C-alpha cells in the first residue's frame, strides 16, 4: 500500500466524465455543488441551479453512468430547498442536505423521501447561520460548517448541540467563511478555510493540529479552497476553487499534483449530440483545448470546455476514485490515484 508519507511519486489519472447539463430536471445536472457517495457507490449530487429553479434537485447516479432517480425541489416546504450547499449520508443511510438560505437541514430516507427537518437561524450554540458543509464522524456525530458564524458545530443527527470550535479570524483554529469539511481514517477533521486560503486540520475533539496554505496561483498555493477530501491512505485533495483546479498533497502537505481538468463527452452528453445532428456535426471541428489569451483561471476555464470550472466539492468513492463536482459544466469528473 502506498502511504501518504512515502516518497513515491503519486499521480492522479483521469478516468471519466459523468453527466451533462439538464436545467429542467431529469437525468443530468445543473450546477451541482456537492455530492455524497453511499457505500454501494451510488453518487448523490445536489444541484443548486439558482436561475433555473426546476434544476434544483438531488440526482442519483453511479460511475458507470447509471441513472437512478432524483428527489427534492425548489421551495420551502418539507423536503424542498432553496439554496442547497451540502449533502452527506449518515450512518443510518439517511441523506442530509443543508440549505444556507433557509438555515436548515433536511433529512431523507435512502430513496429521497422526506423524514424531518431542523435548524434555527442564529449564533447561539446549536443555532446555525449559513450551513455550508456536512460530514458525519465515525461515531455518528454530525459536523456542520456553520460558515457565517465561522465555526464548526458538532451535533447529533437530530440537530441537538454537542459542542463547537472556531471563531472569526485568521489565527490557528479561526475561520474566515469556511466551506467544505472531511475527516480522515484517524478521525481528524479537515476544514476548507475558504477566505483564509488554507486547509486547517483538527483532532476529533476540535483541537488544532496544523494548517496548510498560502495565497497564490503557483502549484501548492491556494486561492479560496472550497472543499477537502482525504483518502484511506491519507492523501489530501483540495478543491482549489479560485485557481480552478484540484491539488493533491500527502499527509505532510507535500505537494503531489495539480489537475486542471480533462473532461470528455460522457455517454449522456453523446446521446444529446446524437439527437442534435447539427451540433454533433459542428462539434467534429470543435477544439476544447484552445490556447487561451487570458491569465485569470476563472476566465480560462470559461473558454476551455474540458477544464474544471468552479470545482466546488470532492469525494472519494469506495474504490478510491476521486469524484469532483465540476459545477459550471454540470458534470462530474472522475480521477484515480496511482503510483508511478
Amino acid at each position, binding site marked *: 500500500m502506498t502511504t501518504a508519507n512515502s516518497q513515491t511519486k503519486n499521480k492522479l489519472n483521469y478516468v471519466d466524465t459523468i453527466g451533462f447539463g439538464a436545467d429542467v430536471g431529469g437525468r443530468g445536472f445543473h450546477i451541482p455543488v456537492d455530492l455524497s457517495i453511499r457505500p454501494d457507490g451510488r453518487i448523490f449530487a445536489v444541484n443548486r441551479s439558482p436561475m433555473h429553479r426546476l434544476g434544483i434537485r438531488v440526482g442519483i447516479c453511479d460511475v458507470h453512468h447509471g441513472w437512478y432517480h432524483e428527489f427534492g425541489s425548489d421551495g420551502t416546504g418539507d423536503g424542498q430547498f432553496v439554496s442547497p450547499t451540502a449533502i452527506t449520508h449518515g450512518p443510518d443511510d439517511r441523506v442530509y442536505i443543508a440549505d444556507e438560505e433557509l438555515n436548515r437541514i433536511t433529512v431523507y430516507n435512502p430513496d429521497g423521501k422526506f423524514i424531518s427537518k431542523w435548524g434555527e437561524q442564529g449564533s447561539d450554540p446549536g443555532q446555525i447561520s449559513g450551513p455550508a458543509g456536512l460530514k458525519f464522524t465515525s461515531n455518528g456525530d454530525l459536523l456542520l460548517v456553520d460558515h457565517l458564524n465561522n465555526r464548526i458545530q458538532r451535533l447529533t443527527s437530530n440537530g441537538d448541540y454537542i459542542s463547537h470550535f472556531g471563531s472569526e479570524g485568521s489565527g490557528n483554529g479561526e475561520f474566515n467563511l469556511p466551506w467544505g469539511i472531511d475527516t480522515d481514517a484517524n478521525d481528524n477533521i479537515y476544514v476548507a478555510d475558504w477566505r483564509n486560503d488554507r486547509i486547517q486540520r483538527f483532532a476529533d475533539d476540535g483541537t488544532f493540529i496544523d494548517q496548510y496554505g498560502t495565497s497564490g496561483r503557483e502549484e501548492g498555493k491556494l486561492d479560496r479552497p472550497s472543499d477537502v477530501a482525504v483518502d484511506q491512505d491519507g492523501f489530501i485533495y483540495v478543491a482549489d476553487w479560485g485557481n480552478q483546479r484540484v491539488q493533491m498533497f500527502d499527509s505532510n502537505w507535500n505537494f503531489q499534483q495539480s489537475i486542471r481538468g480533462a473532461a470528455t463527452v460522457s455517454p449522456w452528453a453523446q446521446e*444529446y449530440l446524437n439527437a*442534435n445532428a447539427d451540433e454533433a456535426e459542428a462539434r467534429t471541428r470543435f477544439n476544447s483545448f484552445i490556447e487561451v*489569451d487570458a491569465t485569470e483561471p476563472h*476566465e480560462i476555464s*470559461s473558454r476551455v470546455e474540458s477544464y474544471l470550472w468552479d470545482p466546488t466539492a470532492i469525494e472519494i468513492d469506495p474504490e478510491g476514485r476521486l469524484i469532483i463536482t465540476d459545477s459550471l459544466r454540470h458534470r462530474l469528473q472522475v480521477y484515480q490515484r496511482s503510483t508511478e
Partner: protein
Amino acid sequence: MTTTQSRTDELLIAHLLRRAGFGGTAAELQKFSKIDYEDAVDQLLNAVDTTSLPQDLIRRYHIDQSDLRTRGSSAGNWLYRMVTTDAPFIEKMNLFWHRVFATGQTKLIQGKAMSTHLDMLRANGLGKFDDLLLALSKDPAMILWLDNQDNHKDSINENYGREILELFSMGVGNYTEEDIKECSRAFTGWTVENTDYMALKMRNNTMRPYGYVNWQFKFDPDDHDDGEKTFLGETGNFNGEDVIALICKNPATAGFIARHLYHYFVADELPVPQWPHFPPINAQAIEVMTHAYFESGYSIKAMLRALFLSDSFKSQSSWNARVKSPIELVVGTVRLAGGYDSPTSDVYAHIAASGYMGQDIYAPPSVEGWMGGADWISTGSMVTRVNFAGEIVSNLENNGVQELISTIRSTAGNSPTADSLVNASLVSLGKLQVSDGTLEGLVEFAAQNIELSNPTDEAIASLLQLIVSTREYQFV
C-alpha cells in the same frame, strides 16, 4: 489645491458627480468638499476602483454570477460594480459605451460574453479611441452581435463594416457604400475560436452538453482578404488595424464621438439618425472636444476633461436638465441608501426594476442603443420610478438609510425646523436642487407631518420618500 470651496464650486461639483457618476453620496460630497472644481474633475477622471464587492464573494453566494449564463446574472454582476465602486465615473463611461456600441444578450444568449465585453470597455473606455476601436473589433460579443464570423474573404458580410462607420465612429454622410465594402474586406478573417460550433450554439440557444464556452477572438489568415483596398480615399493592402487608423485620423470621427459625449454628459441631442441632417446643438463644445482629441492622440479622457471644464458643461442651464436613465436612477438611489455591503438577492430585484422602467441592461432595443431623454418617462415608468426610489430610501431596515437619517439629524441640528430638516435632507440626497415651489411644498409637509421637537426615523424617512418622488429627483 485650494482649501476652501466656494458655494458655486460645491454645486458645480455636485453637478459633476451627478453627470459623471451616479450622484454624490454624503461620503463623496465630503470627499470633494475641500478641493476646487478642476481638481475634482481630475480626481474623478483618474479614480481607480478600490471598493467594489469582491468577485469571489459574489460568485460564492450567487453561483449564477460565476457562469453568467442569464441576463439577470450578468447584468446583476455589473450592478454590483456600479453600486459598490468608489470610481463611479468608470462605470458611467461603460454605460456610455454600452449605449454607443449597443450589443445585446438577447441575440448573443450567453452573458459571459457580455461581461467580457464590459471588461473590454472598462479597460479601454477612457484610453485612446483607436485602441478602443481595435479592442471592439476583436471583441467576441461584437463579432457575433454583428455577424463578422460570417464575413469571409470570398463572400463578405457588411454588417460590422457598415456599423463601425455608421454607428461607432464617423456617422452617416462621411463615407460611401464603397468604403463600407472595403472596410468589410479588411475585417475578413476576424472571428472567434471554434467558429462553427460557437455560432451554432448561439443560434440554437443551448447550454447543453456542458454549458456555454466563452468566446475568444481568432484571426484566420486563410480567410482574410489581403488584397489592395481603397478606403476613405487611400489605397493599400489594408487590414483591420489600418482601417481603424484611417477612421481615427478622420475629423468626422472626432466630431461624431464628441457629439455622442455631449449628448450623454451635457444635453440631449437629436436622435443619432438625424445627425447627418442637422448640426450639433452646441458646435463650440464639439470643437473643444475635437481639438482635445487630436491634441492628445485620440484620448477619450482628454476629450472628457475638456468637456467637463468647458462653459457648456458648467453652465447652470445644463444642471438638472437631463432625465435620469432608469439605471442611473436605480444605481444612484441604491448608492444614496448605502449600497450593498455583502451579496444580496436585492441585486436581482434592482436590475429588474431598471427593466420595468424601460432600460434592460445588456438588452438595448436595437444597434442604436436607447434613445433616452424624454423617452424614459411614461405614465407607467414614472410610477415605477417613484415607487422604487421611495421604497429604497424609506427602508429603515437598511443600515445605509439609518446612516442617511443620522446625517440629516446631525446636519439639521438639535432644534430642527421644517426648513433645516428639508435642507439637510436635500443635501444628503446629493445636494439636490429643487424649485421654489417644490421647496415650499416639502417644508409644508415637514411642518405638518413631522414632530420637529423629536422627529422620528419614520418621519424623516417619509420626507425622503417625498423628495425622491419630486420632479427634480428625476433629473440629473
